[in-house]
């Protein structure tokens, strides 16, 4: 599958890591609702690291939609929270 890390790159990643990503995603959501920024960040970084280490960057000249989009490595809990509001974080 193709995974995009926002502000970073697209990676080709084996689907077997999807469970791991979901687990870390849940971890982020939990810490977001409990207001635990440090733990939120550590889940996020583990996710980013997993993708970067296990995946291979997609050739920039290849134009392909991603199966999964991961937030930017420096997203703050405040910004992540906006994802759950009406406006979202995408400009325009």
């Amino acid at each position, binding site marked *: 599958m193709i995974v*995009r890390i*926002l*502000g970073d*790159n697209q990676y080709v990643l084996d689907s077997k890591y999807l469970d791991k*990503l*979901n687990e870390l*995603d*849940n971890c*982020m*959501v939990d810490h*977001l609702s409990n207001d635990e920024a440090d733990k939120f960040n550590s889940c996020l970084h583990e996710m980013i690291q997993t993708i970067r280490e296990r995946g291979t960057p997609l050739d*920039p*000249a*290849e*134009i*392909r*939609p*991603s*199966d*999964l*989009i*991961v*937030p*930017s490595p420096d997203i703050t809990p405040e910004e*992540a929270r906006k*994802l*759950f509001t009406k406006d*979202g*974080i*995408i*400009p*325009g």
Partner: protein
Amino acid sequence: MGILDRLTTMIKAKISSFLDRHEDPRETLDYSYEKQLELLTNVKRGVADVVTAKKRLELQKAKLESNIEDLNNQAREAVSLGRDDLARIALERKKDSMAQIESLTAQIADLENEQIKLVNTERRLSAKVEAFRTKKETIKAQYSAAEAQVKITESVTGISEEMADVGMSVQRAEEKTESMKARSQALDELIDAGTLQDLTGDQTKVEEELSKIKSSEEVDQELKILKQQVPVKKKAKTEETPEAQQ
């Protein structure tokens, strides 16, 4: 629903509304290409803005660093003249300046990081835009509107996702640059207000007092020399020598 699902769905929804905008899918190709070129210009401008903001902070940092040298010298001079009170003021200002330098260093590193990211973004987007342009011409030449649909959807979806991503990166960089600009402006105002020493501005209190002390020392010295050169008249007493009065 997790963060990844939400983010993915949100971006895909935005893209599909873009795809639905044109009746003839080939128009979508041209429109998208136009938007890509616009975005590429925006990214380039973003890089330039970050560089400018960084340079400004670097200048302020250099200014504060040279202030520290001056304040050190002033403190030393004040101590040698027995004016610990002035030395204290100079050292306090030095400490303020050092704290500002530390925060500026972090901000400069932050902008440096942003610059690297944006330059990479620009490179990646350029490659994608070029690939899209070639693909667009091929699709237009080889397929009828109906046949082209699938190919167009695929490539426009792919590039639109890239564009959404780049758009967000540029926005983040802009926000960062703006907040740095505001902070560096505040620092300028602080320097102007005299809280910190401004080299181009008026003399500070420490400098003023030190130069006052210095000039009265010089007067004493000159007086001493004068006294040695001019013989005191026998009749008059020392205090009455008019040349010797200050």
